């Protein structure tokens, strides 16, 4: 449906283009909420929000599994655990609700400038859906 974008960053791809990450605005309602809350809480210099739900058996637009890449000066001097807690705090309501999984990558602006790459998420292995089939 959405055109493949030929972009060098490994985080980009058809899903991100569909979520409107580069264009800043499109994507499902949860994607927009995530983007808005992270922007308000962490004032990122760079932000990517990715709906990974299709990779986990959900239909496109399911909005259950997300990955976020947040580049923010707020992370300076903070250990990884504290950085991730800041992200979780901003998305507390969503994590208590429809957001089932969240991959989080945090960088300070300096870290991102020196290494603008992020590892892709691990492949889905089925989760509780698979567990039920075994029974």
């Amino acid at each position: 449906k959405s055109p493949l974008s030929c972009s060098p960053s490994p985080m980009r791809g058809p899903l991100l283009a569909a979520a409107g990450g580069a264009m800043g605005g499109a994507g499902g309602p949860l994607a927009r909420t995530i983007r808005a809350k992270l922007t308000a809480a962490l004032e990122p210099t760079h932000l990517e929000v990715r709906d990974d739900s299709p990779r986990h058996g959900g239909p496109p637009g399911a909005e259950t599994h997300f990955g976020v890449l947040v580049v923010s000066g707020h992370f300076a001097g903070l250990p990884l655990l504290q950085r991730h807690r800041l992200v979780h705090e901003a998305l507390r309501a969503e994590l208590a609700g429809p957001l089932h999984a969240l991959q989080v990558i945090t960088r300070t602006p300096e870290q991102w400038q020196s290494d603008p790459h992020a590892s892709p998420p691990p492949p889905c292995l089925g989760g509780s859906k698979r567990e039920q089939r075994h029974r």
Partner: protein
Amino acid sequence: PVVVFMKGSPAQPLCGFSNAVVQILRLHGVEDYRAHDVLQDPDLRQGIKNYSNWPTIPQVYLNGEFVGGCDILLQMHQNGDLVEELKKLGIRSALLDAEKDQEKK
């Protein structure tokens, strides 16, 4: 010293993020750890999230201290912090031996 709350078991992880934790630990030669399958116990699944104030599974604990989930463990592995943390627990990472082998060549 190493405790993991995950989906499935180390022999058969049922979630990509839980599997990532198992694989990273395996790379460091850490195979002898307590693994709790939260899919077997809904009370445990919610309880451990309340305990650590962390919303997702997997969760990694080193010497009773919550360290983080799969993303954090991966970054610790990539930047060398995991080798150091294991050393504090008296666990010598297998990757140190791998490096030594490389130096011999």
